[in-house]
């Protein structure tokens, strides 16, 4: 096995046992990037020199104070970071020409946290510009290609992070989700993506898309890797007033408790939206969990199509305000550099918030948001988790988003309700299509049920081999 194919857990063990050095690990990843990224385009910036330097520093610590590795679970491990997280001294663009030369003077809280845990930042990954989209096709720079089929899209907006994991260009990666931006590309690239409860992870330093929904989260090769990463980045942040002081558990502690007696809800409204192949794979996964002792129950949720309207209104409104600071006066380039999608969203959001329309759109959407929250609360009285398809399709061909201003919203239909309700969701692979593309399923839970979601996801992963499949590259 090549070093760049390792999981966090394996890399950590290997470093601890001195089977290889951090520098070797980092070089293996950089080598894979050099070989493959010209075709995949997952990275906007690769920090070749800095990463090697950081790896050498990690190796020094490993040589001098080997005990430090227990306290620093990412020591010497390469991590790819989505390009909407501010990184001090390292170009951060959000894939927009407006920020094409922006070098932040500070680190996002999650970046500080992974650095403190010893991570080596490998580079910054491509995304839809400002995270507006589900394909990476709105990136002002280039489109990322799906490692499973270069003629397919990786999904988005965290498409670069998901593709870099799928192509083994990195060991771990960070993404962000507003509604689907972690789970949808994870589903299309066959990776594990975790969208935490809103407020579980600090947004400080994450370039805002829709502030009331944005959530940083891990994209990884396995469920336990996602659990390791989330534990590191989660927690109360004095710089983000919306973070929760709810204690962060060690997600690995109960991860292998199995699914015996766990009540799994399956919503027919969600299955109805997915393509047949996906529906079948998800139902097969339900059977697998049932065999392992889970109690499966058919449930009914508010039709997810309503979430599209609610999400579109709230998100565009917040976007129109959040992008107002990009005026080119203090940093970056001027407004003429905004791409089509950003302009569309700014205009629509400005309209929703205008006097005379606010009540009809924004306020009504907030009311519907409460209804969706209550709908989930009701559902979680009868079941512990809800299982359903992730994206409604497998990876679509390049260019699929080009003429559809609502492409992202349609692709994210099954993520929008839970995102609106601030709930956590785990997406992982539950099969492959006839064309050989990954199929994703998601497990949803109540607020702060991260531990349980990892437990169920891990049990499924242990019982199946889907996560072991790799694209032929």
């Amino acid at each position, binding site marked *: 096995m090549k070093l760049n194919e390792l999981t966090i857990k394996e890399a950590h063990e290997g470093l601890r046992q001195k089977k290889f050095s951090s520098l070797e690990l980092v070089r293996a990843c950089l080598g894979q990037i050099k070989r493959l990224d010209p075709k995949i385009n997952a990275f906007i910036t690769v920090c070749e020199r800095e990463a090697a330097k950081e790896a050498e520093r990690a190796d020094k610590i490993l040589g001098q104070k080997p005990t430090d590795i227990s306290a620093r679970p990412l020591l010497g491990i390469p991590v790819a970071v989505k390009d909407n997280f501010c990184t001090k001294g390292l170009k*951060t663009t959000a894939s927009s020409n407006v920020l094409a030369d922006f070098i932040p003077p500070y680190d*996002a809280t999650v970046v500080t946290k992974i650095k403190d845990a010893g991570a080596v930042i490998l580079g910054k990954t491509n995304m839809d510009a400002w995270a507006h989209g589900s394909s990476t096709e709105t990136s002002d720079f280039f489109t990322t290609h799906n490692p499973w089929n270069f003629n397919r899209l990786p999904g988005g907006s965290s498409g670069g992070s998901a593709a870099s994991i799928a192509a083994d260009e990195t060991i771990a990666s960070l993404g962000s989700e507003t509604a689907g931006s972690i789970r949808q590309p994870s589903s299309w690239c066959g990776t594990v993506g975790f969208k935490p409860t809103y407020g579980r992870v600090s*947004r400080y330093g994450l370039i805002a898309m829709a502030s009331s929904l944005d959530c940083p989260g891990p994209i990884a090769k396995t469920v336990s890797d996602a659990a390791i990463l989330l534990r590191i980045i989660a927690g109360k942040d004095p710089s983000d007033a919306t973070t929760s002081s709810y204690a962060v558990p060690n997600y690995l502690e109960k991860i292998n408790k199995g699914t015996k007696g766990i009540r799994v809800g399956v919503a027919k409204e969600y299955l109805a939206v997915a393509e047949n192949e996906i529906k079948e794979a998800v139902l097969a996964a339900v059977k697998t969990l049932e065999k392992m002792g889970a109690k499966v129950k058919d449930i009914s949720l508010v039709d997810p199509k309503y979430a599209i309207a609610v999400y579109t209104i709230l998100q565009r409104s917040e976007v129109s305000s959040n992008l107002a600071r990009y005026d080119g006066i203090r940093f970056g380039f001027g407004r003429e550099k905004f791409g089509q999608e950003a302009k569309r969203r700014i205009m629509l959001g400005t309209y929703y918030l205008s006097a005379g329309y606010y009540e009809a759109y924004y306020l009504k959407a907030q009311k519907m948001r409460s209804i969706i929250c209550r709908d989930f609360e009701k559902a979680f009285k009868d079941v512990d988790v809800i299982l359903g398809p992730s994206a409604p399709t497998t990876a679509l061909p390049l260019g699929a988003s080009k003429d559809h201003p609502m492409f992202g919203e349609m692709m994210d239909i099954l993520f929008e309700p839970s995102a609106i309700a601030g709930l956590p969701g785990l997406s992982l692979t539950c099969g492959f299509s006839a064309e050989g593309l990954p199929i994703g399923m998601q497990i949803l839970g109540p607020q702060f049920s991260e531990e349980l979601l990892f437990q169920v996801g891990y049990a499924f992963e242990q019982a199946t081999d889907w996560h072991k499949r790799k694209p032929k590259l």
Partner: protein
Amino acid sequence: MRQIGQISQIRRANYQPIIGLEIHIELKTKSKMFCGCPADHFGKPPNTQTCPVCLGLPGALPVPNRKAVEWTIMAGLALGCQIPGESKFDRKNYFYPDLPKGYQISQYDQPLAISGKLGNIGICRVHLEEDTGKLVHVEKATLIDFNRSGVPLMEIVTEPDLTSSDEAKEFLQNLQRIIKYLGISEADMEKGQMRCEPTVNLEIKKGNLTVYTPLAEIKNINSFRFVKRAIDFEVQRQFEEFERTGIEKQAGNKVTRGWNEQKGITILQREKEEAADYRYFPEPDIPPMRFERKNIEDLRKKLPELPEKRARRFIREYGVSEYNAAILIENKGKADFFEEAVSYARELEKPPGTKAIGDWIVNKRVDLAKTSPENLLKAILAKAGAATLDDSELIAAITSVLGINQKAVIDYNNGKEPALMFLVGQVLRRTKGKGDPGQIRLLLEKELHDDKKR
């Protein structure tokens, strides 16, 4: 143009100015409203007190300053406001180069305090927001200093209850005093720590009809004197304009006018104020605030004695005149100095009267920075000792009063404070009004205490 004040009395009787005030006050918290940068920006080198948050850099988030919220609630309480159990911040969206985020974090429909009163003037609301940066115009360029960006700014909006420029000036001075007593701002208008924007129009009687002139909001005023002058000018201008054009107030014809200090006039800055749409919506980066009744009551307990109440107490307890009381409470430092001198006097064998201490501070225009309460007393005793009633005469009167008013003495010893005032009255009757009530009071207290010890 005619000079202000030349309108004939007959005409004057036919119209009434209607004035409402919008006042902004910078709070002197240690840190800014939403970040840890120092809030004290006056005279600091440009852009030395900034961070990602107050520069509005990508990804930065606001965290509200608890102290600023508490102080605003306290100001609301001092102005007799109600404090709703729930409040929130909102985004006010507009573009201006001094506003780094493209929106100002302010409060829209749920301010921290509502429905108060100061004197006869209704207080509509008190809310909290952030100050903007400052534009510095130099030759061929405009520079921006963000030191002020994000400084806590309290906004107080009155009802349109004021009817003259004098009333407005008096209101503002009264308000400034309260703010300084609360210790939440220096409220210096010339330093921009307190800014006032009056909105003015006229109610005009035409036979049985009452009509109103269009509203004008006046900006750029930086002293109490100019508040008065700007309002006077605007009243006159509106009257003349109405005479000439007959245009009445209607939706959409509110204007913004700027006060020009050099010319002493207001100049039209912006028409159709209503057209500005700030697209307010709840600030998603800051959770709504909830206040328990107990939190509010705890803040109420922290309120210092406010100037008006203190003046009344000075008159009642120390026998100072209404006029001198008003001067003594002008600023908290002076009032505190006076009370320190009084309490120091209580320890003296032969104290000067409390009224005399007050009179001395007012009449001699004592420079508080150059003397201590102790030295002040020495000066009073040295120079004014002779002027007071002969001690033996006073002591005799007190002894006799105490002798024949045993019930009052017992009442006082049992904690009935009013009994003391009764005894003071009795002594004054005996001395035929001669002597300082404050001094008599102190002597009586001493006598009664010594009595108790015996």
